[in-house]
């Protein structure tokens, strides 16, 4: 069976890995430490090909019924 790239599915929002600099900026903007961020598993199919490691910050751009477009952040965890 052909492998399906889930990231291309309409229901899967865009996941972007942030650079260390961007990550620091986001942490500062929310004056929060990385532990306070929502998490995402490293093995999450939506992160396939992004080459993430533990502690990376992922920006997720979703459609929102109230705000049109909205950004969400998640930090990569192993388990």
């Amino acid at each position, binding site marked *: 069976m052909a492998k399906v790239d889930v990231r291309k599915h309409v229901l899967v929002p865009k996941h972007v890995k942030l650079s260390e600099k961007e990550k620091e900026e986001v942490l500062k903007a*929310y*004056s*929060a430490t990385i532990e306070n961020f929502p998490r995402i598993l490293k093995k999450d199919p939506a992160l396939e090909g992004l080459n993430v490691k533990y502690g990376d910050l992922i920006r997720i751009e979703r459609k929102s019924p109230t*705000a049109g477009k*909205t950004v969400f952040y998640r930090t990569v965890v*192993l388990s």
Partner: protein
Amino acid sequence: MPDAEEPYVYKKVSTVVFGVLSPKLIRKIAAAKIVTPELYDKEGYPVDGGLMDVRLGVIDPGLRCKTCGSKLKECTGHFGYIALARPVIHISFVSVILTLLRYTCRECSRVLLPAAKIEQYADRLKRLGKDKGSDVMRKKLKDIINALRSGSRCPHCKAKQKKIVIEKPTTFFEDERRISPIELRSRLEKITDADVELFGLNPAAVRPEWIVITVLPIPPVTMRPSITLETGERSEDDLTHKLGDIVRINQRLFENINAGAPEIIVEDLWDLLQYHITTFFDNEVAQLPPARHRSGQPLKTLTERIKSKEGRIRHNLTGKRTNFSARTVISPDPLLELNEVGMPDIMAMKLTVPERVTEWNINYLKEFVRRGPKAYPGANYVVRPDGRKKRLTEETIEASIEELQPGYIVERHVMDGDIAVFNRQPSLHRMSMMCHKVRVLPFKTLRLNPAVCFPYNADFDGDEMNLHIPQTEEARAEAELLMIVDTQMISPRYGLSVIGCIQDAISGNYLLTKNGFSMSRQDAVNLLASAGIADSSKLPKKDVVAGKEIFSALLPDDFSFAGRSKSREEPEVVIKDGKLVSGVMDKNNLGEGSGLLLRNLHKKYGRHFALDVLGKVFKLGVAVLMKRGFTTAVSDTDLPPEARLQIQNVFERAEKEVAGLISHYNSGQLEALPGRTLKETLELKILEVLNRARDETGKIVAMNVEASHTIVMAISGARGTPLNLAQMAGCVGQQALRGRRIENGYYGRTLSCFRKGDLSAESRGFIKNSFKSGLRPAEFFFQSIVGRDALMDTALRTPKSGYLYRRLANALQDLKVEYDNTVRDSGGRIVQFSYGEDSLDVSKSEGGVLNVKRAVNEALEG
């Protein structure tokens, strides 16, 4: 889990350890050693080293704790201890002791399991203990030992084991010879920590020998306070009585041992000590006679305090009750303000408000005291500055008036204008508990304005509600500022008013504001006055005024509004400069959760004004109906003969159509809809035809029923729908069970009065009759089927959705919107990066959206 790759450690409660206090610990935590059973000396002062020792905490107001220096209620009390002359067994752990004795060697105290086997089973046992608890683990160990036991010798030292039996409750025998607690304790002492673990005990928290008590902790006096009776006599708590027995017997035991008394006397006293300590822990042990008061009633000791329905857990913790509260049946009173609550006078004389005496109000408060508890408004209690409360009775009134001076507190009856918190269960949202101002009224129900029924979800079919009287200045201020009905007007769920006109108030305003309504100016002034509007200067200066002009008298002069109503004749509602120009006032504008009229009033003039206007509108609506008269009658559903003929025709046509569909189906001419079987297609088509027929009768009814009060209620949205009316006048229609026509019952048919395989309308639950004309038996039966199903459905769904809501509310209760608009929990973890993804406070919006256009216009106009 700390990990090389995952270095963060989150704080977590990993385990909770339960254990037994060691004698060393008991001595360490104790504030005093108790040596004498005496409680008080001749002056009535607690004896040092007695059970009421001042070092154990304070129970008298004004005194300070000898140990920590805190006052009453600040000091939680301190434990003491008694050293027992001889050890005794703790009743709660008898079964553990028995297991330990039976499954360890009487010589070397090792587990009766060969070393190799211990190694083999240890891990498995520990895992079992972790999963299922130490009781299961202990059971498993016993099973293993019993299965492996060969002969009665210890696998370690080869000593011969004897049979151990227990004579309930606390005596152990080894082959007929009694094991004294001393011997027992020394055996338990010898069990190694490793072996203790095999028995499912954590040796750090529970060394087996600690189960045999040598030092008994004495609970602080704060948990066994003495009470002073009316006569001035002191009455001690049950626990203190029991502890007195223990100390007394312990002392005698000491003396007898020291005096070298015969062993038999010592043993008797020892047994007595065991009995007292056992009943101290649990006075309902099966084999023991319970310790009793002199009156013969059994003492309530530690276990009885906690256990059962009257115990601490079910009675005090799970079932907390509150003072200064009241509960009765509610009834409506549209003459009350929205933020008032009517309180029965007898309730007002039971509930009190504490009022502090100052030099300015002393004469005022003296009058309350003078009237006492039986005259309203009087007072029930006077509190002295030292915290002593005195009940006012006929005899004490005079003395209390004399005594009263600044610093005293008078607990006076509740009066008009006092603050109360009103509540109806289930308290699902914050509007279920609102602050109202009291109005003391005759009769015995709590009364509320029907406009606030909606947030409470209350009706008057026997509902009861609770009322609380806040007792401190802070609580009253908080309730008034944060909880008063005004503040709860706009729903945080959808940003519209949750308080609105209902029922008669809607009908009344609809009739008033409909085109064509007019009355003499004189009548209009009276009408406004009866609705509580004294100022009629807004009424136009003419002899006859229109209903819309009367309604406009309630609106502020600079208010403009555009909206829609339910009405077909006057759908556009326009208010210009405080005048209702066109449109009727119906549920769309005055009802709760609909339309922006109330929302805009709230926004422009503030909550107090909006609530005030709403209250007046409500009263006006009711007053209109009072003046005009309003009745719903059976004759409202009468139809002219032509209309009935029309309905007849509709049915005949529909029946023919259904018959046609069935014969099509039988002859195979019917074509299946995509994704449906032939049978389903037939059902769908029949349902469609029948529903169309019902709708047509509805239309005929709507066209032919004369303008009546019943119709007014339906179209103004006050109560009922046009469909309800059609069902009464025209035809009830198809009864549907789970979206289909009724199909089960007998084999191949719904009822025995039909032919098998009959698919016609009347055999499958179509009710041709109206509620007024009456139902045929089969029709009645079909309606009952559907009615029962609907009842079952609600009965099953309510608790289910209620529990779902509860779980959700509990899971979300500590989330908070921070200043940067993020939503975080109490641990600072981010849940949303922007509240609701748009950072919009719904309660400040208008129906969930912002009116940007108006905001811009207002900004431009300055």
